């Protein structure tokens, strides 16, 4: 009787232990709590959403999962933007240069809001002028509209003489190296805070 009780207890304990260990393995990543990044807030955007796909600057079909292991700095803009986009890309190049060895774990991406004009080869040459390591995201108008929507980017084409320009919110987004979390810079976030945030995210262990 007593032996049966202890056997049952041992089996229950083993089952509990096995369940606990299994839960560690199966727990949805990311497991670690999101780090506090001054100047940034955690977005509800899920970069792993199955309908987020695009082309990179080489015309390769991509999802954010393909960039796993690298922290992404995503900036929405377009090549035919003479002032704001070059200014921001120049600043981002300065920040990234200062990272030292951690630079290899950071990827800056210009996500175009003008995919009809900004085909991969246009985007590639453009971003490389700011830093040879910079990349770009483009795709069909639908793909880019979905991407912008999921990142809560407000944008629209606005007429400019016989041409058009694109009004857009100009926040900087960070996708962590697990490809699961998105951080958004506030309107007054400094590049010093961006530099610090990249340092934290680039040194995170990837589960």
């Amino acid at each position, binding site marked *: 009787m007593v032996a049966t009780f202890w056997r049952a207890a041992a089996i229950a304990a083993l089952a509990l232990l096995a369940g606990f260990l299994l839960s560690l393995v199966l727990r949805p990543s990311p497991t670690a709590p999101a780090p506090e990044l001054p100047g940034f807030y955690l977005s509800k955007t899920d970069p792993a959403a199955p309908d987020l796909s695009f082309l990179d600057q080489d015309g390769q079909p991509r999802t954010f999962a393909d960039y796993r292991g690298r922290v992404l700095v995503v900036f929405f803009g377009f090549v035919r*933007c003479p002032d704001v986009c070059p200014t921001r890309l120049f600043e981002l190049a300065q920040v990234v240069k200062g990272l030292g060895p951690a630079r290899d774990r950071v990827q800056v991406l210009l996500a175009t809001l003008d995919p009809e004009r900004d085909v991969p080869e246009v*985007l590639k040459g453009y*971003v490389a002028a700011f830093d040879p390591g910079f990349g770009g995201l483009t795709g069909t108008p639908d793909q880019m509209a979905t991407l912008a929507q999921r990142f809560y980017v407000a944008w629209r084409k606005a007429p400019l003489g016989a041409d058009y320009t694109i009004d*857009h919110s100009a926040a900087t987004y960070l996708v962590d190296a697990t490809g699961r979390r998105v951080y958004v810079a506030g309107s007054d976030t400094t590049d010093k805070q961006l530099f610090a945030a990249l340092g934290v995210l680039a040194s995170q262990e990837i589960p």
Partner: protein
Amino acid sequence: MSDLRYPRAAIAGALVAISLLPGVARAADIVIERPWSRATPPGATVGAGYLVIRNTGKSADRLVGAATPAAAMVQVHEIRMADGEMQMREVDDLEIPAGGSVHLEPGGLHLMLMDLVAPLVTGTTVPVTLEFAGAGRVPVELAVAPPGAPGPTP
């Protein structure tokens, strides 16, 4: 003696009056400082021009046009933040107040060089002719800094 005194005063008075008339800024009243631009990366078909327009005259003037052999068209654009969006709009008529200045600089006003004939190259200059309502045509040379540079190369 008295015959000569009055005409002289009249001429002097007329000159003062003319110089005070609005829109009679002379070319010498418009001074351009720090004219610069940024090299354009491959694929970019537009460039920007930045400068400070100082009006040393006694009447306001207006920048009404600009042209360059380097681009099909030049417009004055303003970047502004509205409803959380960066917007870029054409400014038809840019007033330069008497005794004041207007800064065209990144994130604010700029000359937009549209449909560039060739990419703008760091270290070169781009000739632009500015047209003012009063001062007429004022030529400037934009010094080209690297892509996205925050200011002209010293």
